[in-house]
């Protein structure tokens, strides 16, 4: 299975695996990654699964759609150019080894 590394705001790294087709948010929840809350369960409604994906992997993930773009305007932590909602990114072989940085707050 492809690998994902979630990196907490304090730098702690969590190396986990995720099935293709499952969202990064669902992988985080299944792996008990505290930095993702996802209170709406992946409906793109709450912006509490905010993450940062840096340039090395940003080219391999689908572009931001308008709903996600709007939600990202209202995240608890600062929005950066690398900001994404992890519920909107599905795991694939191309994303094997992706590093997902987590903000210090989601709500």
């Amino acid at each position, binding site marked *: 299975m492809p690998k994902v590394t979630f990196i907490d705001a304090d730098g702690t790294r969590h190396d986990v695996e995720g099935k293709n087709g499952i969202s990064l948010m669902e992988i985080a929840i299944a792996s*008990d990654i505290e930095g993702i809350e996802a209170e709406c369960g992946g409906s793109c409604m709450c912006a509490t699964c905010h993450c940062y994906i840096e340039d090395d992997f940003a080219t391999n993930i689908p572009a931001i759609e308008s709903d996600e773009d*709007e939600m990202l305007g209202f995240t608890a932590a600062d929005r950066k150019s690398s900001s994404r909602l992890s519920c909107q990114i599905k795991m694939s072989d191309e994303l094997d080894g992706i590093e997902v940085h987590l903000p210090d707050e989601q709500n």
Partner: protein
Amino acid sequence: MSGEVSAVSSDAIVIVGGGQAAVQACLSLRKEKVTAPVIVLSEESEYPYHRPPLSKSYLSGETDDAKLTMRPAAFYESRDVHINLNHTVTSVNAVDQVVSTQASDINYGSLILATGARPRPLLLAGADLEGVHLLRDVQQSRKIKQELETARNVVVIGAGFIGLEFAAVARSLSVNDAERRVSVFEVQDRVMSRAVSAEVSSWFEQMHRDNGIEIHLQESVTRLNSQPGNGGQKISSIVTASGREVECDLLLVGIGVEPNVELALEADMICENGIRVNEFCETSAPNVFAIGDCAFHPNPFYGNKMIRLESVQNATDQARTVAAAIAGRKKPYHSVPWFWSDQGEHSLQMTGLSDNADLFVRRDGDSANSFSVFHFSADRLQSVDSVNCPRHHMLARKLISELTSPTPEQVADPQFDLKSLIS
């Protein structure tokens, strides 16, 4: 996960209920560094799951059981949270601080009532026929999903969120490669009349009609007819007050919910439309809190008006409020209400409370099917319903939470940038 709950220290935090509010309370208590044992007593037979998909994507199969489950078992174990499924609490003794189940008595230091709500039953002869359903839990949703495989004539009573979400899914899934007839009956003169503006009601009504759903307004179902089914009697048709008879092999009753207040009431806690709590979610009994669908609470954005909300937002935010209070860092509940409903391909998002609105102003979104209706009372923004327009919805949440109101003229002016009003 059944049998006796082991004896624990008297500072234990007991949570009654196993829904969204309960799970968020577990998470937030540990985030607040509360170390007392946490014991969840849930009547359900499964680990806590997301309820919103039960009337939408779970029925269509898009959301499976794995996705429905909120957190894996390890989540609770790693936080020293003891989930007890199939545990019905029979009484609360708020004087001695003890909750009782059939199996045991448990002392608590803090008690969180997250008992939720239950669907209002249909008060008609035949409400217990095969093929007649309420929809609140995953078992009910599974049964409905199974019956949808063969049900040709589906009837829905109540054009609220649950009824319309379900109707849209039922209509979109074919039955044996044929179209299914879906009829909705509503006693009010428009759909979702309690929740949205008339303009949004009529937009959704038209959309559902265009998709082939028959919607009957100001029409009540007065009789259920039956025929022999699998062992018992099964629903065969419904008859309305005006004498219309419609064939029916699956009836969904979606006529609202009632808060589960009985435990609190029997323990002499003050209950009205729900268990009465203050801004810290404290009930009238010491060390007892109530959160989520069961809590009748003040909202600071609307003059501390007492309200009861059935929403994910309210469940999670009140759970955070309770966790902070138990941690000794009391912080009043301070949230603008927001809700959502997915019907067919369309998304409805609502924020605020509209009770006293006297002016409704439409603002168009970016595409043909995208717009919002802004509700004003004495020229102050109260609430906003957004159809396929998350931009307006998020903006409205921000405006209301910052106590900033655009003027009705600004909302009506497509050139005016509403974003310029928020900090």
